[in-house]
């Protein structure tokens, strides 16, 4: 089974800095970590490789420092990495990103399955998986929480929906976006780290991929961020005077008001 896993570097804290001009997240690589949903996607792919054989390629678009995270993925069982890194890719929305990633997929040279995290914890859009499947014109199943059966022709998956689950059978090639708890990501071993440090990671620019300049970066992004702001904390404390009995009654009234 030949799989491609899309991975994104996200800030390690929720205190992100925003670019005052483009209103997009400043990605300077400081304390960037791999999106936790993507870690589950990687583990799913590596698990499949271990059971059925094959190869796992990890794919990301980001600043040069993102190579560090792809090498970490190699240490956890991936075989090769492709990083799309070019100033021309900067400021991309999900549409431009999906197009760019599709070029990376072509660069990987053939696949039966693409795995993505259900969403990234910074943007929270959950759009990349479905949009990438759209560009590649392959079927897509989102929110997969279990792979029930897999052959070289088709896959049967369990997908979370409101109030229950769906079981779906899909022909390969397919793109799946996975829930975090589909599996437990492994830790790298010393041997894995040795491979991760030296294993093949190709860094590709826009021209090497023959990217259409109108479909990448800010130019290729129909989404324009007009304004970003940090929501103000909406909490205040109200002192409740009186005896414990009076305080309890007053508190009960307040609780009712809040729950209304």
């Amino acid at each position, binding site marked *: 089974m030949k799989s491609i896993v899309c991975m994104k570097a996200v800030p*390690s804290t929720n205190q992100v800095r925003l670019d005052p001009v483009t209103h997009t997240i400043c990605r300077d690589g400081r304390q960037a*970590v791999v999106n*936790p949903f993507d*870690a589950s996607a990687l583990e799913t792919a590596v698990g499949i490789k271990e059971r059925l054989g094959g190869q796992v390629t990890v794919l990301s678009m980001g600043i040069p420092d993102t190579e560090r995270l792809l090498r*970490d993925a190699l*240490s956890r069982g991936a075989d090769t990495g492709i990083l799309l890194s070019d100033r021309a890719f900067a400021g991309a929305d999900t549409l431009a990103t999906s197009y760019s990633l599709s070029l990376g997929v072509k660069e990987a040279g053939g696949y039966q399955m693409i795995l993505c995290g259900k969403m990234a914890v910074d943007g929270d859009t959950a759009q990349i998986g479905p949009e990438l499947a759209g560009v590649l014109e392959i079927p897509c199943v989102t929110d997969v929480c279990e792979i029930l059966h897999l052959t070289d022709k088709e896959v049967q998956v369990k997908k979370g929906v409101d109030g229950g689950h769906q079981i779906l059978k899909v022909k390969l090639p397919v793109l799946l976006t996975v829930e975090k708890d589909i599996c*437990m990501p*492994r*830790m*790298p*071993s*010393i*041997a*894995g*780290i*040795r491979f991760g*440090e030296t294993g093949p990671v190709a860094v590709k620019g826009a021209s090497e991929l023959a990217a259409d300049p109108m479909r990448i970066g800010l130019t290729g992004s129909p989404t324009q961020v007009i304004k970003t702001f940090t929501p103000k904390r909406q909490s205040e404390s109200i002192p409740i005077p009186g005896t414990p009995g009076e305080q309890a009654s007053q508190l009960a009234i307040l609780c009712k008001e809040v729950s209304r």
Partner: protein
Amino acid sequence: MTKVRAFTSEFDEYRKDESRSVGQAESISFPENEEDVCHILKQLYKDKIPITLQGGRTGLAAAAVPGGGHVMNLSKMNQILGLRCNGGRYYIRVQPGVVLSALQKGIESKRLDTAAWTEEEQKVYEAFCQEPEHFFPTDPTETSACLGGMAACNASGARSYYYGAMRSHVTGLRVALSDGSMLCLRRGENFAKGRKMRLTKEEGGEICLELPLYQMPHTKNASGYYVCDDMDAIDLFIGSDGTLGVLTELELELLPLPAVIWGISCFFRKEKDAIAFTKKVRKEIGQAAAIEFFDEGAIEILRRQKARSTAFSSLLDVDAWVDCCIYVELHCESQAEALDTLYRLGEILEAAGGKETETWVARNANDREQQQFFRHAVPESTNMLIDERKKIDSVITKLGADMSVPDEYLDEVVEMYRRSLKEYDLESATWGHIGNNHLHVNILPRDGEDYRKGKELYAIWAKAVTKMGGAVSAEHGVGKLKRAFLEVMYGRKHMIEMARLKRQLDPYFILGRGNLFPSTILEEGEGKEK
């Protein structure tokens, strides 16, 4: 002013600590500052009422379990009081009830409440906030421990292998004596002459102490008073198990956080390979800040716990072939140094019979958290197992050894534990600080008979460890549960010397009565001498 209150049933939880021992008391207080402490001490001193000191009650030797009298719980003395800088190093002043996790969080996030600090200390804090990250290196598993309690039993943790125990990081203490008078001790200012020590009270007046004459073991040690020739006076109070004074303020040294911290779990098929690996790592890897051990019994408890409790379901699976695990934590100045060290560790592992593929390396916060969960789940799961067994037979309680030996006895002591556990047919789980030859062998009694046999075995081990030049308590302190072992280690004569030392500071034997030695030891001892 904080009141002394009657010990009604609402305070029942203050009758016990993490050792699962239960005591009783007549009154309780929760002082909020030094003035409160001194006031209560003066009040109780008049009536010679015994006082048991408490913090987070996380101790494992029952030092905080009252044997009657008064309970002084210091958990409300939980303020961080100030910060000073000297020669580029930072020193933080805290009340004894500050919880370790609160200190760790405060330093890490650099969000300390400095409103009540002096202007100068606020300036130091501003400079501190601009500095790279710092940390407090003493890291017992139980982070809800109070810093006062940690100093009182000279607590340590995994990283004590490299950074030393609590003692190494306490640079100042304010101590209230049993009569309410105060001592202010700063490291490096007051030394004993041989075994004679002079202390000056803040109120005026000198105390001349005759220190016990025993030689302490050259191992990790939290057994009895710290005494040696020409010692620093502050060290007498660290590890004194709440028997010499009330620690009302501590000054602690903070260290710059290493740039790179990686944790490596190495799995072995044979225990002897793990020991060979440990010895080699100790010799060759200077960047190892912790070397920890988990045996088959401990790993099996985790497997069972994971299968039956959702709270433990996110534990990583350990393969069925695994017999034991060694965790090594590397503290390095750069990624390149860490990588070189990791590769060297891998070579040592392969030479010792392990495999580089059979390791977990935690290099980021997520993986570190996962590994820490694994390590901390071991004692937690063991306690849960014992609590279950206690429901069937109330006599059962965990029997946890806390003994250490010098480096050259590591093989011998492990061999002794294994041989005798087999001979006595006892279930056990062993983990702990193998880098310091300090293993917590936990006997898991299945019934009352196992419990009796386990206690018998501990007494045998205490004798053997003493013979090897080790300590009967390396980090938990002696408290009330390990008094008999302390006597095995030092002998009756030196126990009496310890009690006499206490009497010079606490003439009515008020503080921590029953900790280290029975309160009647002097009457018995001196009766015999006559």
